[in-house]
């Protein structure tokens, strides 16, 4: 894991001081709420329906037990004893007092954490593959690249007042676990024909009210040129992205309006200039960062056998535990989606427990996933049963990873001032309808995603089944979408037709999945069947 040096620490400490100053000026009435808003937003502090919400950055979703315990401490001391893990691999706290925010940042800074650029029209937290460093299919660990980008984007003087927010994700495997094609910039580390490692650059993806899958604008950027290339991408956007309409201000609209080829041409032209400015760090800096992500001290000669005699453990093992590149180790996925729970929420006690397990059994590492779950990336197979028992006792052993009840949901109208409809109760009702694990397992991988408004924080466009809450004449109404994917086969879901009531949409989901059971061929997931047979049979099943 990356460790701060004196420079990183000084910058984060200065940020605490700066935000304390800004909050004091606001509390003293020296600046208006309108002037304060962009300042607090740049630090992840939103004014929501009931209170301030603070979003804390978890760069590329990686943290250690000490940092995880700090997240529990903040929930306990400043919030209502829980936190909410988000689709950008961050955590947010829903019940924060403005006057406490500087103290929270000071606490975070003691464990090399911050809330810098977790909102605002700037470059947001860099996201990545939650299995980085553990996955068998990766070309290299993507996180050194993500850390390089984190540092470059932090207080970037030119790109702090972009037309709109800007999200970057980095992966280094063919399987896309970070939805890179649905980001403003998606970076896929790969090898070119000469065997050199570099970056494939996707630009202009996104969800929101105008969802787009990002085109490739450059097949290969050498590592030594990455920052200057991304700088050129951002400069073209900062100069020419639309500022006349907030709904057309994301880079996807610029790329769509001028075309990917023309955008790529402008970037090349800008890059030819920018590359001469000496913006790219020396190779030694990349090596310094990469050394922090060297593989941990794995034990060798461990057995790969696991005692499966406890049937509940065996179910969890089959569903939530994934293959690790190191013999004798496994990747443990902790589902934050218990039936009846709030997707992504965890109590302070649960957060502490996950920290304890990481420290004792997981080489002190945890990850947050964009699907709002937690990962222990490096667990010895011999310890899996003990880990499962501890998780089970804490209500954290739901064996539903990637099944229909592993739902992504935004906070919705229960918390969010932008929402048109509630998301959480819909997620809970669907999870309850499909509570039988046998039934869920029979349905197989099925990614269901719910957003409470058109901004699509719940990724409904990318759900195999997506649900979008809208306000229809003062009544919550839910549209159903089918056929989306946020993975390497990225696609956007299609709206089935007229919307439903809260209970009606649960029934509609059930009719869709029953149709899938009827039509599926061997080994097909819901998405595969949908793609093979098309939209019509499902539409007919849903609307009769």
């Amino acid at each position, binding site marked *: 894991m990356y460790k701060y040096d004196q420079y990183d620490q000084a910058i984060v400490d200065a940020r605490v001081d700066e935000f304390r100053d800004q909050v004091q000026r606001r509390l003293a009435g020296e600046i208006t709420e309108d*002037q304060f808003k962009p300042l607090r937003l740049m630090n992840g502090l939103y004014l929501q329906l009931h209170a301030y919400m603070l979003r804390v950055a978890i760069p590329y979703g990686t943290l250690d037990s000490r940092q995880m315990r700090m997240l529990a401490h903040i929930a306990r001391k400043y919030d209502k004893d829980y936190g909410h893990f988000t689709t950008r691999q961050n955590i947010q706290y829903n019940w924060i007092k403005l006057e406490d925010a500087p103290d929270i940042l000071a606490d975070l800074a003691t464990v090399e954490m911050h809330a810098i650029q977790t909102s605002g029209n700037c470059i947001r937290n860099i996201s990545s593959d939650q299995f980085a460093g553990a996955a068998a299919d990766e070309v290299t660990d993507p996180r050194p690249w993500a850390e390089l980008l984190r540092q470059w984007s932090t207080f970037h003087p030119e790109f702090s007042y972009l037309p709109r927010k800007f999200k970057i994700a980095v992966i280094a495997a063919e399987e896309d676990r970070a939805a890179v094609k649905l980001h403003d910039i998606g970076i896929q580390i790969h090898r070119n024909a000469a065997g050199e490692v570099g970056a494939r650059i996707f630009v202009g993806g996104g969800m929101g009210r105008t969802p787009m899958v990002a085109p490739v604008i450059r097949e290969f950027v050498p590592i030594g040129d990455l920052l200057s290339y991304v700088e050129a991408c951002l400069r073209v956007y900062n100069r020419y992205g639309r500022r006349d309409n907030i709904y057309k201000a994301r880079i996807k609209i610029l790329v769509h309006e001028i075309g990917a080829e023309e955008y790529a041409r402008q970037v090349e032209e800008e890059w030819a200039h920018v590359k001469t400015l000496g913006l790219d760090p020396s190779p030694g800096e990349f090596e310094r960062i990469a050394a922090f992500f060297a593989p941990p001290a794995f034990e060798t000669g461990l057995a790969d056998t696991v005692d499966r005699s406890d049937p509940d453990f065996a179910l969890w093992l089959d569903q939530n535990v994934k293959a690790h590149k190191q013999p004798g180790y496994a990747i443990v996925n902790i589902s934050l989606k218990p039936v009846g729970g709030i997707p992504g929420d965890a109590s302070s006690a649960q957060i502490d427990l996950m920290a304890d397990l990481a420290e004792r059994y997981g080489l002190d590492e945890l990850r947050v996933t964009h699907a709002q779950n937690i990962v222990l990336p490096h667990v010895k197979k011999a310890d899996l049963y003990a880990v499962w028992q501890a998780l089970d006792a804490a209500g954290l052993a739901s064996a539903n990873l990637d099944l229909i009840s592993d739902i992504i949901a935004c906070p919705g109208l229960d918390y969010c001032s932008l929402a048109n409809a509630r998301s959480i109760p819909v997620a809970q009702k669907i999870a309850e309808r499909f509570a039988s694990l046998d039934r869920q397992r029979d349905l197989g991988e099925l990614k269901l995603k719910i957003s409470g408004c058109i901004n699509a924080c719940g990724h409904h466009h990318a759900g195999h089944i997506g649900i979008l809450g809208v306000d229809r004449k003062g009544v919550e109404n839910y549209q159903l979408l089918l056929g989306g994917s946020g993975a390497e086969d990225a696609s956007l879901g299609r709206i089935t037709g007229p919307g439903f009531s809260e209970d009606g949409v649960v029934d509609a989901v059930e009719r869709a999945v029953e149709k899938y059971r009827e039509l599926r061929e061997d080994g097909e997931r819901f998405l595969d069947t949908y793609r093979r047979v098309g939209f019509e049979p499902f539409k007919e099943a849903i609307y009769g």
Partner: protein
Amino acid sequence: MADFLRFRDDAPHEEPAVTLDAFLGQSNATAVRLESDEDARKLIPQLGQLALIEIAFPKFRDGRGYSAARILREAGYAGELRAAGDVLVDQIPLMRRCGFDSFAPDAAIDPDALTRALGRYDHVYQKAADGRSPVWALRHG
């Protein structure tokens, strides 16, 4: 004389700034004002004759002027570069990094808050137009 914040030792330039269109059409002006949607690169062929370039910030959220400033500094412009309009104290450190050395804010800036803001960060992560060494260079210095 309006209220300027200047970070230059030379005397303020007295000639009023003309519009970009007027500048491109007249060969001898020494001061020009760029609106936020105008292309700073159009000035590059004639940078040598300019002593003052003023860049408009109609709203603090409109960040195009940051790119314009860097483009002008990267092209070698050494004269006065002024940010004018909705310029807030917390933006001035970023603007300084992009090459602005003069400010004409619509609303008065609290000098104490400005001093604190400008002195707060001892280190920066990226190279920009202000000549500061980024931490990646310091680490390997």
